């Protein structure tokens, strides 16, 4: 009955939490596969080819980071990592290793579901990734024409501001780490120069946001990176 629904693989060792997520996801008509260890998880990815992977970073057998690294050698399956609070460095590492998004426990299942939806939507889009025009709230971006509108007004951006925005746009809805942004916009030798990012993000906000101190779109994930919100509700 549900064979056409996306398959989600859940690697989580806490039985209660696994049960909770399993029930929640099943009720949303996803097919769900659960395992409790990293090794079995990796085998399951190879055999079952899930559309998405939810990975708890604290696993009994191997480090969650290892799972990500090993998986990324041969698979592009999107990964959402779950971690405890106060582990910003772990989260950043996971994202830099190739995870796509993260949630810190405790989180609301509504947020999890919206993240899953966004990720699945993104893979569905991938083949025709030459999307030209993005509309996010009031902001309209025409990539090849390099034009940005806020409402009806054309906004002028510097090349760096534009590069920054276009990377965030391509990952709209997902967090992009400081390192990833610095590497893609300024180059590999700038990955430690966080202050560039602060200055240019500030400038972008002042140009695009109605209230730069309470941004609606260009959101900060403290200690991790930035996320371009696709609108309300995330």
């Amino acid at each position, binding site marked *: 009955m549900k064979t056409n629904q996306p398959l989600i693989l859940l690697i989580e060792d806490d039985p209660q939490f696994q049960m909770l997520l399993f029930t929640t996801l099943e009720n949303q008509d996803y097919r769900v596969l659960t395992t409790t260890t990293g090794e079995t998880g990796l085998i399951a990815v190879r055999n079952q080819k899930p559309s998405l992977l939810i990975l708890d970073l604290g696993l009994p057998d191997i480090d969650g980071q290892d799972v990500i690294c090993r998986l990324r050698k041969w698979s592009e399956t999107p990964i959402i990592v779950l971690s405890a*609070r*106060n582990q*910003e*460095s772990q989260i950043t590492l996971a994202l830099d290793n190739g995870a796509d998004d993260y949630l810190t426990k*405790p989180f609301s299942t509504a947020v999890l579901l919206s993240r899953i939806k966004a990720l699945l939507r993104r893979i569905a889009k991938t083949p025709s990734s030459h999307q030209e025009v993005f509309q996010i709230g009031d902001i309209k971006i025409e990539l090849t024409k*390099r*034009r*940005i509108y806020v409402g009806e007004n*054309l906004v*002028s*951006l*510097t*090349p*760096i501001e*534009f590069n920054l925005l276009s990377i965030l746009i391509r990952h709209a809805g997902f967090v992009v780490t400081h390192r990833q942004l610095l590497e893609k916009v300024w180059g590999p030798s700038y990955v430690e*120069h*966080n*202050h*560039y990012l*602060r*200055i240019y*993000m*500030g400038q972008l*906000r002042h140009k695009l946001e109605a*209230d*730069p*101190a*309470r*941004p609606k779109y260009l*959101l*900060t*994930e*403290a*200690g991790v990176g930035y996320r371009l919100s696709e609108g309300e509700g995330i």
Partner: protein
Amino acid sequence: MLVLQRFILLTAVHFSCNKITQSIEAEKLKKTYFNKYEAESFNASLLWGVFITLALTFISWHFREVLTPNNILLVYLLGVFFVALRFGFWPSILASLTIIPTFAYFIAPPIFSLTINDPEYISGLMILLGVATITSNLAKDIRHKAYMAEQREWRTSALYNLSKELAEARKESEIIEIGVRHIQAEFGVRNTFIFPDDSYFEQFPITQSLDNPPLWVANLNMAEWVFNHGQVVGKGTNNFPNENAIYVPMNGSTGIIGVLALDAINLSKDFLSKKRPLLDTYMYQIAHTLERANSVELAKNATLKMQAETLRNSLLSSISHDLRNPLATIVGAACTLEMDEDRLDKISRKKLVSIINEEAQRMSDLTIKILEMARLEAGEVVLNRQWYAVEEIIGSALRRLDKNLKTRPVNIQLEINLPLIYIDAVLLQQVIVNLLDNANKYSPELCPIDISVVTTVNTLVISVVDRGFGIPEEFHIKIFDKFFRVNEESAQSGVGLGLSICRAIVEAHGGEIKVSNRSGGGSHFEFNLPFLECPPIIDLEEKELML
């Protein structure tokens, strides 16, 4: 049983060269001082006895026309008396014995013959010998008393110096170092104190001893035996007399607290019987000072322990109050849902579910705060400082509180061109979240909250101001204490940790946090962050217009 902590391990004393030379010089000085009176220059004194007799004979020879031999005998007596006072018993006896032949040969007729004709002179000579022996004995007593007095004085001053130095010592390692140095100076022996550690015996000082060759290693097994039996052992005692050391137990008020080991290679067998009382006095002083230092330490620890106890009690009471209530609600609601699932109407079910959700959220917040505080307290937190824009941090803090703030107006006033600041963004965001959350909880709905950021010469000042009930002035400092709440039974949930977390974080950044009352009602929280470094310069891009 072990009163003394493992201070032995704490500080290895390094004797400064200065101190070593001082003590060795003191020892030398003392030796020459006493030797004047002691029999070490015995031979020289004997010669003096003979020499003075001969000199008197020589002088008397010239006056033999004027003085009768009886008078000359009195001159000899004077000489013997002088020798007795100046050089002691044996030289004076020798002097008197020398007088017999010289008097017979040079003074008593017939001259140049050892015979004495006149019986008067023979009896005179006998009386002289008798008087000389008695005087010598008397003089010896006087000298001995003087010697004792001198030595007592020396000891008093040595003990005085010891107690003076000990009185100034604070740390146990200092006390031991002083003790070792003074015992070495007084008794001329290398020594070491041995104290029991938690499980084994340790020797002190661990570093170089006062003399060369380097530290002579005491036998720790022996020390342990002494510690357990409370008896002196080693050279000159009945126990282990073949040891080349002496181990003396050190008595404190609660029993034996340690063992003094003396290097006995250069000590005579009767060292103990002679010097034991003085040694005991030294050890008593040292032990007493050690116990004093130790009890100060214990008192300090007791105070700390008490504070920790109070803290633990308030932690327990808040946990039991603030975590048990939501738990009770959650368990109750979940039970009802499980049992009466079919009987409940949709609205009631929804209500119960939302109660569970809310209470769980509350518990989660509390748990996070308690853990956060514990982490900060444990010193586990290493600041992950990076350059950040304050605006961004305020923005993300506000976003985290979106649900709680709902429609409450928040005014943000930022100075133009705020510099970047070198901070741990996650922690700083926590500070702002806590302050905003408090402002939100403790001020009437729809009253605006104002956030402002200004710079001074070397700090960035961030304020969060509300129109709430304010905080009574007497609590303005206490409010930042752990588990302190102005109103203990307030309906607002909280453990009284939010502000302590703020303070811990701000102080970790080298800043200060304080609260004052706002004119017109409300409270004004303000914290500053010092600019530790100049913000890095970035290569600005030419502002090319994108059209």
